[in-house]
């Protein structure tokens, strides 16, 4: 089952990239995520592993995931090592000459071998997962734009002082 959500953020890709690559921020902006722990020495980039959990229905579902694609400022993808089968991807695309960013979050999940019951569970879970992604992007936009506004205000103050 593949679900996704997209949103436009009034902040440059560099700032949004900082959000999506920093594991410490996930618990603050990802809705439904109850765990996003680094399990490797490197905390970000290709090969970094995280233990993740998302509350869906009566259980916290997830597992160990590994970053398998890291195209700076554009794409960040992960795949599951243990736990339920999942692939996730952040797609960042520059808009308005770098002033805005189109952010897309995709999540593909399932349990191989679970048959028709598994298919049914994926369908039932999809609205909750999609809602989690949608709210996560909204929160990401709120935080990123807030940070962008603060940085702009600080720059204005610095310019005025000068």
């Amino acid at each position, binding site marked *: 089952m593949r679900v996704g959500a997209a949103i436009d953020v009034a902040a440059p890709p560099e700032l949004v990239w900082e959000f999506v690559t920093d594991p410490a921020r996930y618990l603050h902006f990802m809705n439904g995520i109850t765990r996003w722990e680094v399990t490797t020495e490197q905390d970000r980039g290709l090969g970094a592993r995280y233990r993740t959990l998302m509350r869906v229905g009566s259980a916290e579902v997830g597992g160990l995931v590994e970053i398998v694609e890291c195209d700076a400022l554009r794409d960040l993808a992960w795949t599951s090592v*243990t736990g339920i089968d999942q692939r996730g991807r952040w797609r960042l695309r520059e808009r308005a000459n770098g002033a805005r960013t189109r952010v897309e979050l995709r999540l593909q999940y399932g349990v191989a071998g679970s048959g028709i019951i598994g298919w049914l569970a994926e369908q039932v879970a999809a609205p909750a997962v999609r809602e989690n992604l949608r709210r996560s992007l909204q929160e990401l936009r709120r935080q990123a734009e807030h940070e962008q506004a603060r940085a702009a205000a600080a720059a204005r103050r610095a310019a005025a002082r000068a």
Partner: protein
Amino acid sequence: MDTETASRPARNGHHAYGDPFAAPPRDRTQARATRADGADGDRDAENRRSAPSTLERLVGAIARGARGRVPAADLDERDPDFIRETLPGQWLLASLWFRGEVRGLGNVPEDGPVLLVGNHSGGNVPADSLVFTLAFSTYFGVERRFHQLAHNLVLSFPGLGFLRKYGLVAASPENAAEALRCGAAVLVYPGGDHEVHRPSWQAHTVNFAGRRGFVRLALEHDVPIVPVVAIGGQETALFLGRGEGVARLLMLDRLFRLKVLPLSIAVPWGLNVGDFLGHVPLPAKITVEVLPAIALREQFGPDPDVDEVYDHVITTMQETLDALASERRLPIIG
């Protein structure tokens, strides 16, 4: 049960009497002599040994047959792939039917052996087990060894053999010890059949029937106890009574290690005697709360008193159950 079989554990590591974690009686005559007074008791026991009645021989034969159906405990029967593949079905049931909610799984140590001690509800279809085992498996991953101790009857009942793939083993000190030695998380319900069939009006009472074996087990293996408190399971049917007197009369204890013959009103049977075939549980909301781990020797000193630990566990769990009960507005709905 004859003297020979009573003096050693069955091949599945199971004992026939009392607390599954208590030491087994040395033999039947000794057990009886202990209960009797002095020399009269000894003489009485001697007479019984010399002339077992036909009824006793018959009971012994049936009991041996029943025990023979309990599969030998083999921890390797747990199958993580099978568990993973059946998680979606469990999730559907737990989420849609029971609206399960499990809190505090972070209190379970991340790795290593641990004894999870739970209160048990719901008759022979304990929904709290389903909700908790699902949550445990998704939280820690099916790769983490996790065994649940179950009543003989569950393991020997035709058609329920697949439960062994989830890690179910017969409740006995040997099986629990083996699982803990393997570094597994072990889930035990000390109240067992006594607690699971309690009347509905005692739904919010933790009742382990004084069974302290789990404390001795945790001390012996120096593993932490993690209390697991569940509510809602006893609302899946209307439980009227345990029928302990009838069970004694029918010698179910000696035959199947069953101390109860419960009476309930349940779907689809209406009046349900014994609950042997299970029932369709009502969609009661199940809430489970996992409490902080109790490191026995850190908390109670180098040589903890079993009764003190038992009282502490019961009190802690009862307080949590009271708090969970106060959150519920209506039965079943939660």
